[in-house]
């Protein structure tokens, strides 16, 4: 199968290059058969890469340990679903995964894009095929997943235990889907520039792609946080690691784009800015891949250092120079259709929201690269950790949270003072009430107070928006409140889906704030001994060590420590934490320990605070156990926030929702009143 895989990769490279060369050359102009050939090449590229992927999966499934990749990331006793996910566990497999998913997106884009964008599609095919060909080139010349070894080991080295988690089965693909799908909007942007069709048409064509890409990135990032939380055992979910930062960068610029694109659609403004954001997001996705795979910045997430970094650096520079040069040559064509009419308008709020999104992206990038810069300037190695990023980014994040509440309250074009008073009174009062309550309850942490008060303000804004819309609709159509609410959302999906995403962001911020109040302690306990810990909410938890048991499970020996937990003197159950010693079986009856023992955290989720129990180990090989107990306030709201975000994004993306005639006129609260009509 490796020969087939190799052959498929070489064929894919040729097909990809054909599509790229013909697509970019423009020779398809007036030659429909060439345009068709470019499109068909995109489908063929996908089909050939599917063959390559099947070849690798076959090698993984049949334990062909002569393939270096299979030997490095699997073993005979690895559970089936981890054999499946081993496809993207290593550098080489993940490059193939990237290439196949990109070719799939490219094929879907060619297939589903309406015919009115026909003139753009060969260019789109050329861009996607160029990027895919680049990944295939990297595989063929620097990281071949089908490379064979000179010998066949009896068993593979197995998968790192920390990757043997359901989070790692779905987190990397989600993140990759986000990174990869950015290529499609980028391809449309380049196609619009090349074809000089820079009106809002290409924006409409990519609307769903950008949302989907942003959604995948959001889910991928949150799943990564969840994996870190349940698997790494340090009690947190975000460490400002360079690779984490790299995933955040395109998310921030895409978020900025999702807001600014509305201004272009409605007012014909910010055309250059939107082009820059899409190009920048694509480059940042490649930059993230470069950081992860080059080893240029130390990170626990990085793949092994290899020469692929140079490929990515070269591609990054070439893509950046070519894209921005192209943008420069079309600069005059991207004149705005209208001007900002007032500084107190939704357009202005969006502009400042964009400034903050991009500013935070710059700040994260700056912090990530600052060690390199410092070493270059001073010759001294430094490290930039969470305290630095928190100090710089928390105030910016709070400003952004504030704008989340301000934006929807300001009218488009120009807001009057009376309008502002009417709109802001409720949300501001809510924010102040939350602040007063927190102060009265004794909270004195400035940033936590600001964060929660602003969250109150945003909650006030969202509630007001939903309530006013629902009430107006119920009044106008004599509908019951639930029906009016449902129809309001269903018929203004983009607007109210967006508000749900804002609600999700609010939940994320509340959860992040809770992290400032985590409490922890370590204890050595014999069976029957207890330790106590007081939480930020004032509860007293008592942990009673029950004992340690050992048993075999799948491909590991599990040492499980059990703790009986009481909250304010009342038992709430038993929490188990484990050490897992994985082993391989190179031959029947032969068992070898593989990797160091890994830790499985015991977590009891709660809306208020999570119990997070880590069994650190035993004293002198006995049941006397060392534990770390952590109480993490509000963490669960990160995961709930992600679910709300998914719902919001799906509502926004859901097809339809546009209605006509009288129903449209009745879209509550936004009817235009013209003098003399009484309407």
């Amino acid at each position, binding site marked *: 199968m490796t020969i087939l895989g190799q052959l498929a990769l070489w064929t894919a490279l040729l097909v990809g290059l054909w599509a790229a060369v013909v697509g970019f050359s423009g020779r398809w102009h007036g030659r429909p058969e060439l345009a068709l050939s470019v499109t068909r090449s995109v489908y063929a590229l996908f089909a050939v890469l599917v063959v390559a992927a099947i070849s690798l999966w076959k090698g993984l499934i049949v334990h062909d340990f002569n393939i270096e990749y299979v030997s490095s990331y699997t073993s005979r006793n690895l559970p089936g679903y981890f054999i499946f996910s081993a496809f993207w566990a290593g550098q080489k497999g993940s490059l193939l995964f990237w290439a196949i998913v990109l070719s799939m997106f490219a094929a879907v884009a060619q297939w589903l894009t309406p015919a009115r964008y026909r003139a753009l599609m060969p260019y789109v095919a050329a861009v996607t095929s160029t990027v895919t060909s680049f990944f295939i080139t990297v595989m063929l010349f620097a990281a071949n997943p089908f490379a064979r070894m000179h010998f066949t080991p009896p068993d593979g080295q197995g998968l790192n235990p920390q990757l043997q988690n359901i989070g790692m089965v779905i987190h990397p693909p989600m993140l990759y889907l986000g990174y990869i799908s950015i290529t499609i909007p980028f391809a449309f942007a380049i196609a619009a520039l090349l074809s000089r069709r820079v009106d809002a048409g290409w924006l409409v064509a990519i609307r769903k792609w950008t949302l989907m890409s942003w959604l995948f990135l959001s889910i991928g990032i949150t799943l990564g946080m969840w994996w870190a939380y349940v698997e790494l055992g340090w009690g947190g979910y975000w460490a400002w690691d360079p690779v984490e930062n790299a995933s955040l960068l395109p998310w921030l610029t895409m978020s900025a784009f999702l807001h600014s694109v509305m201004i272009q659609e409605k007012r014909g403004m910010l055309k250059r800015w939107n082009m820059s954001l899409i190009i920048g997001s694509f480059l940042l996705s490649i930059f993230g891949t470069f950081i992860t795979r080059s080893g240029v910045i130390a990170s626990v997430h990085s793949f092994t250092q290899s020469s692929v970094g140079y490929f990515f650096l070269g591609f990054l520079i070439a893509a950046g120079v070519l894209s921005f040069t192209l943008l420069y040559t079309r600069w005059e064509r991207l004149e705005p259709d209208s001007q900002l009419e007032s*500084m107190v308008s939704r357009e202005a709020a969006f502009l400042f929201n964009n400034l903050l999104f991009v500013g935070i992206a710059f700040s994260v990038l700056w912090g990530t690269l600052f060690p390199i810069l*410092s070493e270059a300037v001073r010759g001294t190695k430094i490290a930039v*950790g969470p305290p630095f990023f928190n100090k710089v980014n928390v105030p910016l994040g709070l400003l952004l949270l504030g704008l989340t509440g301000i934006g929807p309250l300001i009218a488009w074009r120009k807001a009057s003072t009376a309008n502002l008073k009417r709109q802001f009174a409720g949300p501001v009062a809510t924010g102040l009430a939350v602040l007063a309550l927190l102060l009265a309850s004794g909270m004195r942490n400035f940033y936590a107070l600001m964060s929660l008060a602003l969250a109150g303000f945003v909650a006030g804004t969202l509630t007001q928006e939903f309530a006013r819309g629902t009430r107006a609709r119920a009044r106008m159509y004599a509908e019951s409140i639930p029906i009016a609410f449902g129809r309001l959302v269903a018929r203004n999906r983009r607007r109210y889906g967006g508000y749900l995403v804002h609600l999700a962001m609010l939940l994320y911020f509340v959860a992040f704030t809770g992290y400032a109040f985590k409490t922890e302690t370590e204890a050595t306990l*014999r069976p029957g001994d207890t330790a106590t810990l007081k939480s930020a909410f004032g509860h007293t938890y008592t942990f009673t060590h029950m004992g*340690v048991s050992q048993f075999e499970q799948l491909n590991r020996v599990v040492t499980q420590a059990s703790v009986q937990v009481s909250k304010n003197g009342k038992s709430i159950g038993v929490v188990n934490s484990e050490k897992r010693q994985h082993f391989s079986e190179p031959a029947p009856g032969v068992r070898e320990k593989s990797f160091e023992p890994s830790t499985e955290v015991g977590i009891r989720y709660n809306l208020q605070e999570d119990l997070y129990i880590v069994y650190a*180990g035993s004293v002198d090989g*006995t049941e006397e156990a060392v534990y770390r107990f952590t109480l993490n306030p509000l963490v669960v709201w990160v995961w709930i926030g992600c679910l709300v975000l998914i719902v919001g994004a799906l509502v926004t993306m859901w097809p339809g929702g546009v209605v006509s005639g009288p129903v449209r006129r009745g*879209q509550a609260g936004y009817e235009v009143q*013209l003098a003399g009509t009484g309407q």
Partner: protein
Amino acid sequence: MTRRRAFLAGFGGALVAGGLRAQQAGPDQDQTGALRDPGAAGRPHERISERDNAEFITAVEKRMHCTCGCGLDIYTCRTTDFTCSFSPVLHQEVLALNDEGKSADDIVTAFVAKYGEKVLMAPKPVGFNIAGYVVPGLVILLVGGIMFAILKRRTRVLAAAQAEAPVAPPMPAGASHAVVGAPPASQAELERLTREMQEFDQ
């Protein structure tokens, strides 16, 4: 029969009691049982002392990176990565410096002298490092300021141009809507305007 039962009960009871005593009197274990496979439970762990958990010690350790390359601070690493051989040693160094009566800042300074500046979780805001802290904020302020100034000027110019625009002539016949200051529009145009304004805010 009764005597035999009594004997067996007594013998059994003695055996159980003996067994229990034997279990309780295990070598330095009291009631703590031994693990069947201690190697599978990770590296043998030392007992945690009050000092290990002391607020001062954990606070100092949270200011410095573990040198194993994990990116975590010393406290988090030593209580998380139980395979790390660096963080326990660093912890002992912190304890030793504390024993010498050093303050938190003195301990951090001693670590920087020994391991270099990269041991700090965040660089000290001195010299070139200040740029690390202030550049993002300054750039945002600068760009925001310039943006604000340009937009303010443009909106003022636009407002002035609109103010100088000629007053609308009387409504043409057939137009049923009047908007103050608006150019004349037909019924169809006004309906289209109404429709588009409704779409505008969706």
